[in-house]
């Protein structure tokens, strides 16, 4: 048996577009056609105004580091210490992620640093949106 892998998401009908997006190396969000609210996680209605008229769009994939911990305890698929972070996307919503291509230290992980999405393929069905320090 291989090493225990990280927990793998299982899409639902309402979230499938998001995971199809990451497969295609696109970060897809939803915007309300009625009130223009951009929201996450996925659902087929606007949590701000309750409209069912919503659209999926390709997000910029950029944001800033909102907050994080550096976890020092073991977890399946991770080598401690590793950062568990929350990124605030330029479009507004926040999502949990990991920061890659960056030392996992308080010195390197500065709040509000610019980040960009880095897709990590887990298998043929699931690609995770991770983030790395923005280039340039």
């Amino acid at each position, binding site marked *: 048996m291989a090493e225990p892998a990280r927990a793998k998401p299982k899409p639902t009908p309402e979230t499938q577009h998001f995971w199809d997006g990451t497969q295609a190396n696109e970060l897809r969000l939803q915007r309300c056609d009625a009130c223009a609210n951009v929201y996450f*996680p996925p659902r087929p209605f606007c949590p701000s105004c309750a409209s069912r008229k919503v659209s999926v769009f390709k997000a910029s994939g950029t944001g800033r580091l909102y907050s994080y*911990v*550096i976890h020092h305890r073991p977890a399946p698929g991770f080598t401690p210490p590793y950062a568990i972070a929350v990124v605030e996307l330029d479009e507004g919503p926040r999502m*949990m992620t990991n920061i890659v291509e960056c030392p996992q230290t308080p010195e390197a992980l500065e709040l509000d640093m610019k980040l960009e999405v880095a897709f990590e393929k887990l298998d043929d069905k699931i690609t*995770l949106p991770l983030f790395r320090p923005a280039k340039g």
Partner: protein
Amino acid sequence: MRRNQVAVVGAAETTELGVIPNTSQIQLHADAALNAIADAGLKLSDIDGFATAVETPQQVAHYLGITPTWVDGTSVGGCSFMLHVRHAAAAIEAGLCKTVLITHAESGKSNIGRTPRMVGPDSLNGQFELPYGVTTPASMFPIPVLRYMKTHGITHEQIAMVAVVQREWAAKNPRATMKTPITVADVLNSRMIAYPFRILQCCLVTDGGGALILTSADRAGDFPNKPVYILGTGESVETPMVSQMQTFDSSRAFKVAGPLAFKEAGITHKDVDHLMIYDAFAHLPLYGLGDLGFMPHEETGKFIASGHTRPGGKLPLNTNGGGLSYMHSGMYGMYALQESVRQMRGIAPAQVPGAKISVCHGVGGMFAASGTIIFTNER
């Protein structure tokens, strides 16, 4: 809800607290329940309302041999019992039942007969948080704190003082798990768990339980112990995903529940003699002081570091030692309620002299839920 219409007339914890390797979780419920029944001078057959969390009410009610006419299985994490108190008070006032038993127990350390908590891979948590390496609460609950510190200018030393002060309270409490005094340096040099938090800023993991009995205030004089009245209550929920909180600068669930309770009680912050803020981790008392309106968030760190919440301070906080030093079996809210009741009865090991109003504020999940109960010993 009207003030002081319902009273706590029975309150007890399990016979033992800490490591209880010879008792299953459901028997811990029963041990706490039997102790509370004895405390109130009642029989189990007097109980017609029942509430519990994690376990279903039918599991525990049947184990105890209770036939309730009102049940509440609200299970929103460690503050579930604050919500049970609020719901029970409303039910008693509405005439749905007369005498309510609320139980909590958890074999958090020994793990005997414990109900598993599962997160499915197709749940929203399973899809959008679990893949990033969150495991225990220690990997999730502190995620907001660096943002909170940056926004409000809070220092690592100030948050370390939360643990130091609570150990001072615990030292006065024979039942506290950790009683040895600690310093800020001890906290900041202790083993790193999830930066910025070290082990002395994380709650204990223990076994135990507690139970409360509530009835109409008009009947409260018929019981052996000093009644403790429900003066005000509040509750709310936000999100089961810590990443999806509206902001990390405060807790929306706290900001709804706390002010509701104060408004219902008709008191101001100056009236508060004793305060409990559920401290699963060391940042929670800071969020609580700010979100309940005691002071702006910018002042919370300095307030605690200045010693205002320590023994002899002007706002005694977490006087049993809290989840950091007293005990934490997994859902600590029940123990915060027990300490408020002891303080209102005047029998706490670290009694606040002359305390008349106690605010007890709980959190559930990782800022997912909140409940606030304000008690008084004067009607």
